[in-house]
């Protein structure tokens, strides 16, 4: 077994980036992800890690630098948070469209306003349609593991897509948690060197991301769609291999925590899912049939796995940690995707949404008790008059519509 130590999510990712032996890193500071770059800068300065460390003059520059470096055949790493994520928006589509498996970690931070440093997933969700692999960790260990798994998934010749491994700001980025570091040879056996089919080489000229006519556009877009579809079958294969080599078990797409016989299932991702599991443990001890289905990927969205995991439940309660103003039911992306994923089932669970943890607010055990109470009441109704609830703002009184 590898050495175990307490590391924040940001420090854990720095260790994973080192283990992945990246070639080029581009930094720009923004809370809460910054410590990853502080750690990496230290490693490069002391010779612990042999990599080019470039300071970008902003997030747009960061993503542009790693785009170029990846095109030249380097394994690259960058990262950002909050408004930094949205500032770089223009560059995300060229990176995926040209099939550069760039890795850009996201330490989630609320967009302005409210201008606090708290975590919600909204900023990263604005990038969910950019052709990047995306998902959330619920612990420092999973953040470490995801960094390695995402490189392997992204660099797989069948996929060749960039990745956003996300972690909740503060909750994961800042609170140290136990991480098992790899033993010598473990990472090498899992993650082969990056060896792209095409790279920028004067002896073998290629055009990456050619300008084309409108009638040629759809065919090029189909490429990313198919790569993402192939990722659906590549991911389970790679997660299985990771479990084999590192001894830590992960459900590829959806962690099913006591869902098998559950009548009531929380669906969510990231840090709050861990508190949800604590609630489930206590509720199970009191005889309640409740579980948690935790999404490990948002892109590709695991529609079949999720439908299979929660289809039998009476009520699904979505822990919605991001906002999509004016969307269906005035909810957020997890609601939109989950409702769509369940639509084709012959018998669908009722779906409620809990807007929780927005602005980085803590979600406590008694908040989960409140959500659970509403889920149980909804089970007895044919069509509840309210389906989206703001934790801490709504009374939660429901009736037949």
């Amino acid at each position, binding site marked *: 077994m590898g050495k175990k130590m307490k590391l924040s999510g940001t420090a854990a990712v*720095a260790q994973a980036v080192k283990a992945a032996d990246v070639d080029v890193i581009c930094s720009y500071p923004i809370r809460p992800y*910054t410590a990853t770059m502080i750690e990496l800068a230290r490693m490069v300065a002391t010779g612990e890690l042999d990599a080019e460390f470039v300071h970008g003059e902003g997030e747009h520059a960061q993503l542009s630098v790693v785009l170029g470096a990846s095109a030249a055949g380097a394994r690259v790493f960058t990262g950002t948070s909050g408004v930094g994520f949205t500032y770089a928006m223009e560059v995300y589509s060229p990176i995926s469209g040209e099939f550069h498996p760039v890795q850009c970690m996201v330490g989630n931070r609320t967009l302005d306003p409210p201008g606090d440093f708290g975590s919600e997933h909204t900023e990263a969700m604005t990038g969910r349609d950019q052709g990047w692999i995306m998902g959330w960790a619920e612990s420092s260990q999973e953040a470490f593991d995801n960094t390695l798994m995402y490189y392997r998934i992204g660099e797989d010749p069948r996929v060749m897509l960039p990745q956003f491994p996300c972690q909740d700001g503060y909750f994961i980025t*800042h*609170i*140290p948690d136990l991480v098992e570091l790899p033993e010598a040879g473990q990472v090498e056996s899992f993650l082969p060197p990056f060896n792209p089919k095409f790279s920028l080489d004067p002896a073998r000229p290629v055009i990456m991301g050619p300008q084309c006519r409108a009638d040629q556009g759809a065919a090029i877009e189909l490429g990313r769609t198919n790569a993402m579809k192939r990722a659906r079958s590549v991911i389970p294969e790679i997660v299985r291999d990771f479990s084999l080599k590192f001894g830590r078990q992960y459900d590829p797409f959806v962690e099913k925590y006591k869902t098998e016989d559950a009548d009531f299932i929380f669906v969510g991702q990231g840090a709050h899912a861990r508190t949800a599991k604590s609630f489930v443990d206590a509720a199970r001890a009191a005889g309640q049939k409740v579980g948690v289905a935790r999404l490990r990927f948002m892109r590709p969205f695991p529609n079949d796995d999720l439908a299979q995991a929660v289809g039998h439940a009476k009520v699904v309660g979505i822990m919605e940690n991001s906002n999509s103003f004016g969307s269906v039911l005035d909810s957020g992306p997890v609601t939109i995707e989950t409702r769509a994923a369940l639509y084709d089932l012959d018998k669908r669970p009722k779906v409620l949404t809990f807007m929780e943890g927005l602005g980085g607010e803590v979600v*406590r055990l008694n*908040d989960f008790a409140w959500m659970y109470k509403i889920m149980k009441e909804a089970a007895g109704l044919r069509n509840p008059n309210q389906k989206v609830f703001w934790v801490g703002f709504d009374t939660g009184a429901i009736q037949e519509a």
Partner: protein
Amino acid sequence: MATKGLTEITVWYRGITEGKISRDIVNSLAKAAEKEGCYTQAFDNYGDLPDRVYVPCRSYARISDSPIAEPYLYENDHPAIVAVVEPTMVKGVPVIKGIRPGAVLVVNTDKTPEELLQHLQDTDLSDLAAIATIRAGGGVLEGALSGIEGATDVSGMGSGAAGPIAGAIAKISGIVELGSLEAVVIDPSGVRRGYEQVKVHWLGAAGYNPGPAPHQEERALGEEVPAIIPSPVGENDGMITGNWRFLRPVINQEKCTQCRVCDIYCPDACITADPAGFKINLKYCKGCGICWTECPVKGAIAPVPELDFVGGVVRF
């Protein structure tokens, strides 16, 4: 394993200069408890960071006999142990607000517990079992810089003032064994010194035996708050900075020539140039020292330790 359920430890420190000391205290206590089979966490208060020089900030340790059910909180709910690295904060900051019944307060100071109690006269002490003091050294003006927010800095853990303060906490609370603490720091003699030299003033019956923490409070329902609000224009009661101060500027009106250099240099506009005698706004004066450094008249403004005054600091 000395904890029953979850024990929360809160350490107050002055930003930047005492950050390393504070992190070492919570990290060493958590690590020692881990050796004894406990589940632990040690982390900084996110809202206090990024810290600024002399700002009151908090670090936390959480020690439990079972897995910690809510690992992702911003603050301790009800600490049973509170430590203060720079003693002026006892006066300027409500350090024992929200403590668990039977909690103990450990302060790094040259003063006695009885002297510190003078500054707590208007504070409700009913939940406090003891106030203890330890002369651990360190000092807010000579701290080791360690500003790595979000990363884990456990290098050289417990080499300075952190050791004696952690040792004092171990002695008064028994939350960890002296031996476990000695085993995780690089200077066991410092830990032992704190363990042996702590002075304890029990407010009631002697002995650390905290009562149960209050139940999690029900949320009060919130409502929409506008993102555009009136500016406070004058003094901002939401950002009182007087408790950053541990040295108070005192003007000798006889020597003061009313040249206004202090008024011009004060970064917080805290000096009122009243011809009847210049005044300092203690609600916002951070004790930064620019006025007494820039004053051209020797002895016209003098820095005096804030703890020499009883009263005069507005709590936030």
